[in-house]
């Protein structure tokens, strides 16, 4: 994905040294994040895989983290950039706490801060290669938003990144409704994650579901979904059309 762009005087092309100073392509990546608003707050699901190209190299990566008291951040894309973002947010939350004045950063503030960061990096042609999902609850109001690596940012009742955009969102559009109970919400997320497990090559069967409510953030222990591989069509896949898979 290298491309040369003119800089400075307008006719010089970036040299090899300058190239290595900006993001060109991701190395260790996480796949989809799926998140929905429910009755008491926000639910977010992600698997624990980190792919190194087509190799599923890391199987214990936590791609969702609590931010401050009110927010939860999930990321897909480059894992090292996600860790960098966590460092920025750590500093932000620390400074906010140091004020000790009864005001605290809510999910809307964190989302907008991240949007500014992502957009500014994109303008320098040095993006943080992530799509971020920010969910939270503050003063009884639930918030769910997304920021992409080029700084596209919006809020919605349900969001998904990566393959989730194509496979999970149609399910959510059909079956999401306001005031889902916790159990129904988890069932809906698991349905989406199962489809992703079957169809997304970089997904693994080890996922976490995180819940954020007025009380705070809880990230579940990793667990697996039940899958079924005994469909008759899998036994003799080319029966219907010789030569096809």
């Amino acid at each position, binding site marked *: 994905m290298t491309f040369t762009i003119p800089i400075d005087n307008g006719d010089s092309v970036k040299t090899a040294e300058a190239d290595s100073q900006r993001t060109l392509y991701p190395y260790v990546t996480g796949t989809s994040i799926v998140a929905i608003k429910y009755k008491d707050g926000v639910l977010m699901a992600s698997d624990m895989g980190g792919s190194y190209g087509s190799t599923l190299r890391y199987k214990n990566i936590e791609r969702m983290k609590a931010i401050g008291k009110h927010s939860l951040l999930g990321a897909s894309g480059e894992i090292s950039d996600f860790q960098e973002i966590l460092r920025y947010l750590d500093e932000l939350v620390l400074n906010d706490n140091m004020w000790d004045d009864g005001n605290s950063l809510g999910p809307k503030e964190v989302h907008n801060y991240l949007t*500014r960061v992502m957009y500014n990096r994109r303008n320098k042609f040095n993006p943080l290669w992530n799509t971020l999902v920010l969910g939270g609850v503050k003063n009884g109001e639930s918030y769910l938003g997304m920021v992409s690596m080029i700084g596209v940012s919006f809020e919605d009742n349900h969001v998904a990144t990566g393959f989730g955009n194509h496979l999970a969102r149609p399910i959510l559009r059909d079956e999401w409704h306001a005031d889902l109970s916790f159990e129904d919400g988890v069932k809906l997320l698991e349905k989406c994650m199962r489809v992703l497990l079957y169809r997304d090559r970089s997904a693994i069967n080890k996922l976490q579901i995180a819940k954020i409510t007025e009380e705070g953030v809880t990230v579940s222990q990793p667990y697996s979904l039940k899958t079924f591989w005994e469909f008759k069509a899998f036994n003799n896949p080319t029966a219907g059309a010789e030569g096809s898979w």
Partner: protein
Amino acid sequence: MFRNQYDTDVTTWSPTGRLFQVEYAMEAVKQGSAAIGLRSRSHVVLASVNKAQSELSSHQRKIFKVDDHIGVAIAGLTADGRVLSRYMRSESINHSFTYESPLPVGRLVVRLADKAQVCTQRSWKRPYGVGLLVGGLDESGAHLYYNCPSGNYFEYQAFAIGSRSQAAKTYLERRFKSFNESSREDLIKDAILAIRETLQGETLKSSLCTVSVLGVDEPFHFLDQESIQKVIDTFEKVPEEEEDGGEAEAEAAAAPAEQGGAGDQDVAPMEM
């Protein structure tokens, strides 16, 4: 005032541990015309006396909107006040841009205070000659702060600065305990009454004062002359009579209360 050998530089201490230049800067605040602030649990009212250089000119603006949820009233060197207001607006809008959320007043006030402190510790600078009454709303409710040229800031339920502010302060001291629970209308009335105290017997007219309000669900805005006059009419109709009861006392209390600053005629051109 004092003529000391330790007052030439802001970075020179006196043997008694004072920075005279900073204290002189605080004197400048007392020369400006009065500004008053009061707050309840949900609203903040800022009011000021309109002073004009001469009959020919218009009066100085002393109250500025910093953001929908923050306003500031100044007394002292208006030019310094204008510059600091611009700084406050800038900080507020930058915060809004990054976080899409209003800057908490307490944090703005600390930045302002730190900015003022810098000027008390550089030999090539001078302290700002303006006192600021910053009123605003944030998550923890309504707040009123006073920022001093010294770089100190204090939070108040009600306060008055500028010339003849002592009269207003006396009035406010008697009433402040009830302010927290006051309605918006009562708060405005108290502000205008406090302004009246500083006028020392001059008839209170709506053209003589500027009043601004901000509150929960009410962005910062100025009250128009009509609304102010209406409030004045509720108590000014019977000038020296009973009514609030505080009025007769107020006249008596106002007379002996003398302000340290000079009278209006001696106001330096740059101060208002």
